[in-house]
C-alpha cells in the first residue's frame, strides 16, 4: 500500500483502508451490491497483515462472527447494503446490549426490498436508527467524500472501542463507488491505546460505576456475555431496578462522550438567512450551491453537513434555527432526517424538505431553485 503519497480510490475501498489503519484485523461479510468492494479489499489485504477474512454463509452470520471476534479481542468490520443491513439488525442489537465494539458499513442502495441494487439512495437513515428492536442508542456516521470515508471509519473504530458500542457507517452508492484522492499516513497514530493489558483486579465487564474497557475472553477474567438484561458481571437479571439501570447505562455513555460522537461541519455566511442541512453525497450538491451563492456572490447562505446522523446533532441544528429564516433539508429519500430537524427547530425557522427518490442525485440546480425563493 502506498503510504504518504496520494492515491485514487473508491469510498468503499477507503472504508477498508481506514479500518486497517485503525487496527481492524477481522472482517466477516457476505457479498452484496454496492458494498462488495469493501469485502474484496479486506480479502486482499488482511492475510498479508496477519488478519482474518472470512466470507460467511449469510449476513446474519457475518454480524455474529464480528461480535465473536471482538469478544476475542480483535477490532472488527463488516459491510453490507440495505437488504443485508435488515438481516444484521438482531445481532446489531445484541452488540449494543452486550456492549461489544464493532463497525458496520451500510452502503445504501435504492429500496425498499431488492429495489434498484445499483442506484444510490439515502433510504436507510431510519433503519440505522430504529432497525433493531427496543430502546437502544446508535452511532451513525455519514461520509460525504472518499477521504471522509477513510477518516470517519478510523473514528468509528476508535469510538467503538472506547465506548464499547457498535458504530454504523452509512455510505451511499455515490460515495461508495466514486473515486477520489486520499492520502494515507505512513505510521498511523490514529489507533487508540490498547487497553486490555492493564486490567485492575476488581474489573467488572459492566461495572455499575461506569464504562470499563472490554477484557477479551481467554485471559482469566470469567464473565458472561448475553443479550438478556444483565448485572455487573453479565449474568441475567429481570429485576426492574437493575433493568432500568442497565438501559440507562448504554444510553448515558453516548451523552457523556457527545463531543466525540457528534460531528458536523458548517460552511458559509456567519449570519445566514438560509441554511442547507444535509449529509452523505447530497452534501456535494449543497456545497456547490453554497460556493456559488456565498463565496462568489456573498449571499447570506450556509451549509451544515452532518457527519454524524445519530445521535442527531440537535444542538447544532438549534443554533442554525436561531439565525436562519429557512432550513432546506435535501435528502435522497421521501424525508427521513427532515422530521428530526423539524422536531428540534420547533418552528423557529421554516423547514423545507427537498426529496428525490428516483435513484438519481439531487442536483445543485434543484437546491438553488428552492433557495432562490427565500433570498429574493
Amino acid at each position, binding site marked *: 500500500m502506498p503510504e504518504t503519497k496520494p492515491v485514487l480510490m473508491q469510498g468503499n475501498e477507503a472504508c477498508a483502508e481506514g479500518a486497517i489503519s485503525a487496527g481492524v484485523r477481522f472482517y466477516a461479510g457476505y457479498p452484496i451490491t454496492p458494498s462488495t468492494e469493501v469485502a474484496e479489499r479486506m480479502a486482499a489485504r488482511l492475510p498479508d497483515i496477519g488478519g*482474518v477474512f472470512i466470507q460467511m454463509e449469510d449476513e446474519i452470520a457475518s454480524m455474529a462472527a464480528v461480535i465473536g471476534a471482538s469478544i476475542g479481542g480483535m477490532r472488527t468490520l463488516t459491510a453490507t447494503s440495505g437488504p443485508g443491513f435488515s438481516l444484521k439488525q438482531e445481532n446489531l442489537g445484541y452488540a449494543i446490549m452486550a456492549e461489544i465494539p464493532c463497525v458496520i458499513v451500510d452502503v445504501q442502495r435504492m429500496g425498499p426490498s431488492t429495489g434498484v441494487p445499483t442506484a444510490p439512495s439515502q433510504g436507510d437513515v431510519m433503519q440505522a436508527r430504529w432497525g433493531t428492536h427496543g430502546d437502544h442508542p446508535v452511532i451513525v456516521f455519514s461520509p460525504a467524500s472518499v477521504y471522509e470515508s477513510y477518516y470517519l471509519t478510523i473514528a468509528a473504530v476508535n469510538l467503538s472501542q472506547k465506548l464499547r458500542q457498535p458504530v454504523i457507517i452509512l455510505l451511499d452508492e455515490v460515495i461508495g463507488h466514486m473515486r477520489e484522492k486520499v492520502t494515507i499516513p505512513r505510521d498511523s497514530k490514529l489507533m487508540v491505546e490498547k487497553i486490555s493489558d492493564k486490567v485492575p483486579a476488581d474489573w467488572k465487564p459492566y461495572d455499575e460505576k461506569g464504562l470499563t474497557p472490554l477484557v477479551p475472553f481467554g485471559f482469566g477474567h470469567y464473565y458472561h456475555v448475553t443479550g438478556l438484561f444483565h448485572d455487573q458481571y453479565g449474568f441475567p437479571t429481570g429485576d426492574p431496578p437493575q433493568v432500568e439501570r442497565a438501559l440507562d447505562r448504554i444510553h448515558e455513555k453516548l451523552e457523556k462522550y457527545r463531543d466525540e460522537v457528534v460531528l458536523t461541519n458548517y460552511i458559509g455566511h456567519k449570519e445566514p438567512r438560509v441554511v442547507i442541512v444535509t449529509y452523505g453525497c447530497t452534501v456535494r450538491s449543497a456545497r456547490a450551491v453554497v460556493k456559488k451563492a456565498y463565496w462568489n456572490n456573498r449571499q447570506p447562505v450556509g451549509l451544515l453537513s452532518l457527519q454524524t446522523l445519530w445521535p442527531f446533532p440537535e444542538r447544532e441544528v438549534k443554533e442554525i434555527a436561531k439565525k436562519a429564516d429557512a432550513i432546506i433539508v435535501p435528502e435522497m429519500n421521501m424525508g427521513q432526517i427532515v422530521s428530526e430537524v423539524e422536531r428540534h427547530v420547533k418552528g423557529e425557522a421554516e423547514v423545507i424538505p427537498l426529496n428525490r427518490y428516483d435513484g438519481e442525485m439531487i442536483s445543485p440546480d434543484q437546491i438553488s431553485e428552492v433557495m432562490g425563493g427565500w433570498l429574493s
Partner: protein
Amino acid sequence: MPHIWCPGCGNGIVTAALVRAIERADYDQKDVVIVSGIGCSSRAAGYLNFNTLHTTHGRALSFATGLKMARPELKLFVIMGDGDCSAIGGNHFIHSARRNIDLNAIVVNNHIYGMTGGQHSPLTPSGKKATTAPRGTLEREFNILELARGAGATFGARGNAAQPRQLEQFITRAANHKGFSIVEALSPCPIAYGRRNKLGGPVDMLKDLKENSISIEKAARKEEAELEGKTLTGVIYQDEVPEYSTEYYHFIGKEIPGNTGG
C-alpha cells in the same frame, strides 16, 4: 444452585457431563469458552465458571466461528437445543460442518421447543404431538448426525441423559478431535414433550432412553430386525480432515499460541 430448568429435565445431566469432559480433557480454565444459543439448554452457559457467551437464537455457531478465528487457541464448546441448531440455526450448522472448524457442538435434543412451551422442532419425530401439532406432526425429522456428516462434519457421536458417563466420554473424544464435532445428547423434556405424548414421568423417560438405545459396537453384532426402534449411541463417525482455523493461520504464516491440538 438456582436454575430455570423444570423438575425432571435432562439439561442438568448433560451440562454436568460436559463439565466432567472438560475436566478430563485437562484444559486450562482460561482457555475454555462456552457458547450457546437461545432455549432451555442454552441457559447452561450462564451457570458455568468459564468465559461464557449466550448469543442469539440459532447463531451460536456463527459467534463461535468469529471467536475461534480470532483466537484459535481457545477451546470452544457450543451448546444448542434441537430447534436452535437445526431450524433457525440450520444454515450456520451445515456451514460450520463444511468448514470443519474446530468447534465442539453439543446438541441437546429433547425433540421439542421447551422454553416457549412445547412446539415441534425439526427433530420432533413424525407423528408426535406438540402445541403447534396438536394432532401429531406430519413433518419428517432430521437425523442430525447424518445431516452434519453430509455437510462435512468430521466427528459425530450420540449419547443420552440416561447414560451420562458414556455421554461424558463422547464429549471428551469430541474435545480431543481436531475439526468440527457434534455430540447429540438425547434428553428428556417431561413437561413440554413427555406429558403431551403420554411418555410418562422423568423416570420413565430416562428408562426409555436407556432401553431404546444400543451402542454402535453391540449393534454391529445384531441382525437388522433386532435393531428395529433402537437408537444408536457411540462415536458414529470420525474422519481426519484439515481443520479450518489451523489451515488459515498456516496460510497467513501466523503461529497459534500454545497450540496443542484438540
